[in-house]
């Protein structure tokens, strides 16, 4: 075997070995990671849909629907005695450092039951005040709807709207406000389908 071949074999062996270790670890952790993700989803759902308005399991009572951009959206339904009392779904905003994933809950009248950030990559210490753990900014949206404030005021203050930006971070709240606004529009456009009982 030539010298070059030996190097190739060494590198290949290391790749194979560590690939194997990673594959095994992935297998070992997959179930736990999936379980944690489900718990997280349950937690975030229970934060945007109050326990009082439903008697079903939110995580399992879902259906898929396409939004205006033809993206598949999973809708979680809250029911009381079979009647749909509210829905929750994920919305996406564009922040300073990429996608901001949020969960919003909305009642049958189109009023926000709550909004929470699921995942983001915003600057720690600046943009991360959108997390409920680090500030109560996101709680401000509870109870609002498409008409309250009026549609043209669904912006951050810097853009002539209703909502505070953060010192040093305008793009993050702008992205979140835009996403919530989009989520409300989505509800208005699909209300009939969202409120169907099956």
């Amino acid at each position, binding site marked *: 075997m030539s010298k070059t071949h030996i*190097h190739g074999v060494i590198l290949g062996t290391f790749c194979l070995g560590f690939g194997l270790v*990673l594959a095994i670890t992935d297998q070992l*952790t997959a179930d736990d990671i999936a379980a*944690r993700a489900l718990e997280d989803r349950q937690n975030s759902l229970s934060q945007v849909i109050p326990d009082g308005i439903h008697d079903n399991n939110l995580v399992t009572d879902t259906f898929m629907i396409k939004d205006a951009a033809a993206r598949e959206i999973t809708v979680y339904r809250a029911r009381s005695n079979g009647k749909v009392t509210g829905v929750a779904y994920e919305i996406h905003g564009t922040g300073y450092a990429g996608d901001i994933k949020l969960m919003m809950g909305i009642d049958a009248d189109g009023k926000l039951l709550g909004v929470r950030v699921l995942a983001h990559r915003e600057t720690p*210490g600046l943009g991360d005040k959108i997390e409920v753990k680090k500030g109560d900014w996101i709680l401000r949206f509870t109870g609002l709807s498409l008409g309250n404030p009026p549609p043209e005021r669904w912006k951050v203050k810097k853009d002539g709207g209703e909502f505070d930006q953060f010192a*040093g971070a305008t793009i993050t709240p702008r992205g979140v406000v835009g996403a919530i606004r989009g989520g409300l529009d989505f509800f208005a456009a699909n209300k009939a389908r969202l409120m169907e009982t099956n």
Partner: protein
Amino acid sequence: MASNYKTIVKDGLWDNNGVFSMLLGMCPAMAMTTSATNGFGMGVATAVVMAASSLLVAVFRGFITQEVRIPVFILIVAAMVTLVDLAMNAWMHELYKVLGLFIPLIVSNCLPLARLEAFAAKQPALPSFLDGLFMGLGFTIALTVIGAVREITGNGTLFADASLLLGPAFKAIEMRILPANMGVLMMILPPGGFLVTGLLVVVKRMIDLRAGKEIQMGGAHSVA
């Protein structure tokens, strides 16, 4: 041998500190230090990866030829980072939610790679493990100090949100040093990272000069 270990500890924590002496790992050192807690979290995650990958490289050093050593080192660091990432996600989920953001960034830190090349590739397992560990701890100290200075000057607080990272018991170390709105926002923004890191490098060298030490210049081990 005992004095050898002492040198490893001293080198990692102070004399040859990854950030303040070798000027390595500048990206996380400036990007992740908007608060002392963030700096500390990033540092600890890096220290774990460094200790593990130094140990592995030292164990396998007889098999790694000169020509393929760099890809193998990168492979080992990347594998360790992925392992830590998966394991924390599965079994330390609360901690992962706080630290998870930082962990993939360790791959792009050249300090682990530099230590593998300069130390672990030539030394037995135990010293290599200690070198990785103490270089990582030195990195942790540096990031925590940079974060603390930036947080105090920029936000007026110290160790804010430490209880999210370390558990409720650490609520007590969350402090407000300056009244709210006293902070200079720039210190938390990227320019503050450069300013504070630069000033702390100066401070460290002044202390070394006072002590009559020879200053170790950055990049002494010629790793990019």
